[in-house]
């Protein structure tokens, strides 16, 4: 019955879905970072002409969906599903952002893992024969995230050295049953691993054990050699979290060293913005 499941939590795609288009729009800080050349657009105004940060975030998502569909040269109604999520209450950036698209929608909430989660579910829908084209989107906004989870921006407080900086931006991919790749071939779904870290300013330490557990499970389930991949990338563990992940993997015999990377570290120029410290 479970012909696609290998091991405890890994799935092998039978007809691997292809990533046929990607799009991204980012805010000012990200647009001046080391990855600047890879974004489709960077916006200088954090409000992007809207009245609130939430509306701006929603606009990021709407524009990314429009862009990614254009880049895939397909009409909006060729999409069977949109799977999207963000950090806001009731995923309002996603639901308002894709409101006009008229595509069946799954809203998800995975914080840093939202895009990974969306792509896993999208790939399963396609390989399962339920869809041919699925758009997977995510967004976050520094200002709306600080407002929702931490303190008002104008509050004169200090950020501890382990605090993260939330990306302002949105990214999307279109997965398709047909395409020249890159392909999604295997999926390992992570578990909740709670090591009791309660410091909201040290999210890297809170998330790293789950990342280590998932990567370990992936190699266990698939039997792949540890140097099989050119790069293993995590969402946003930050400098401290990445170091912890590396240590946790090493202590379990997985020495990935230089192939391990983290989006939160890659996206910012840390010399220029000492305050980001992702």
């Amino acid at each position: 019955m479970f012909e696609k499941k290998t091991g405890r939590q890994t799935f092998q795609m039978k007809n691997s879905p292809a990533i046929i288009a990607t799009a991204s729009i980012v805010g000012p800080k990200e647009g001046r970072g080391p990855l600047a050349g890879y974004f489709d657009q960077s916006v200088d105004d954090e409000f992007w002409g809207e009245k609130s940060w939430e509306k701006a975030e929603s606009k990021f998502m709407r524009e990314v969906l429009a862009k990614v569909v254009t880049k895939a040269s397909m009409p909006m109604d060729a999409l069977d599903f949109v799977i999207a999520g963000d950090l806001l209450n009731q995923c309002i950036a996603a639901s308002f952002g894709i409101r006009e698209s008229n595509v069946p929608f799954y809203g998800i909430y995975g914080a840093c893992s939202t895009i990974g989660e969306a792509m896993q579910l999208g790939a399963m829908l396609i390989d399962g024969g339920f869809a041919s084209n699925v758009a997977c989107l995510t967004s976050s906004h520094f200002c709306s995230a600080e407002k929702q989870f931490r303190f008002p921006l104008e509050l004169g407080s200090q950020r501890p050295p382990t605090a993260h900086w939330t990306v302002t931006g949105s990214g999307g991919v279109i997965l398709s049953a047909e395409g020249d790749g890159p392909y999604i071939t295997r999926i390992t779904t992570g578990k909740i691993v709670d090591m009791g870290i309660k410091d909201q300013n040290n999210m890297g330490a809170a998330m790293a054990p789950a990342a280590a557990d998932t990567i370990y499970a992936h190699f266990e389930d698939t039997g792949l050699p540890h140097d099989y991949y050119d790069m293993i990338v995590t969402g946003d563990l930050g400098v401290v979290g990445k170091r912890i992940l590396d240590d946790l993997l090493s202590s379990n015999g997985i020495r990935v060293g230089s192939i391990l990377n983290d989006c939160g570290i890659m996206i910012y120029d840390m010399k220029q913005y000492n305050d980001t410290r992702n």
Partner: protein
Amino acid sequence: MQHVMTKEEYRKYVDKVSPNSKTLRNTLRAFMVGGIICVIGQFFLNSFKNMGLDKETASSVTAMVMILLGVTLTALNLYDDLGRFAGAGSIVPITGFANSIASPAIEYKSEGYVLGIGARMFLIAGPVLVYGISASIVAGIIHYLLRS
């Protein structure tokens, strides 16, 4: 995984690998900025006294001026920069208290005047007010009982 730490081991390990705040630098900055804010307050207090106000009125007017200063700097988008530099040096004085009320008011303006500003203005200052007022009531009762 094969090798798993206990929560206690992990907490100790995380403490070891997480960089600490620069305590000495932050303390010096807090001391300097906090001191400067107090000097400004003292300047106003002395000025008001020289203008002929009695001690109690002069203190009240000084507090009002300092609150105005804190709120103005918050509105000009400067108090958060000051806070990032000075930490407790700009949080503890009354200007910091003003900032803690003005900043959520600005932040939640987009959600309306009643449910936004009205409801959220005391998000940070609220606990200080609740426990400050409660403590003063308890202290008042004790004071009354001891006197009678």
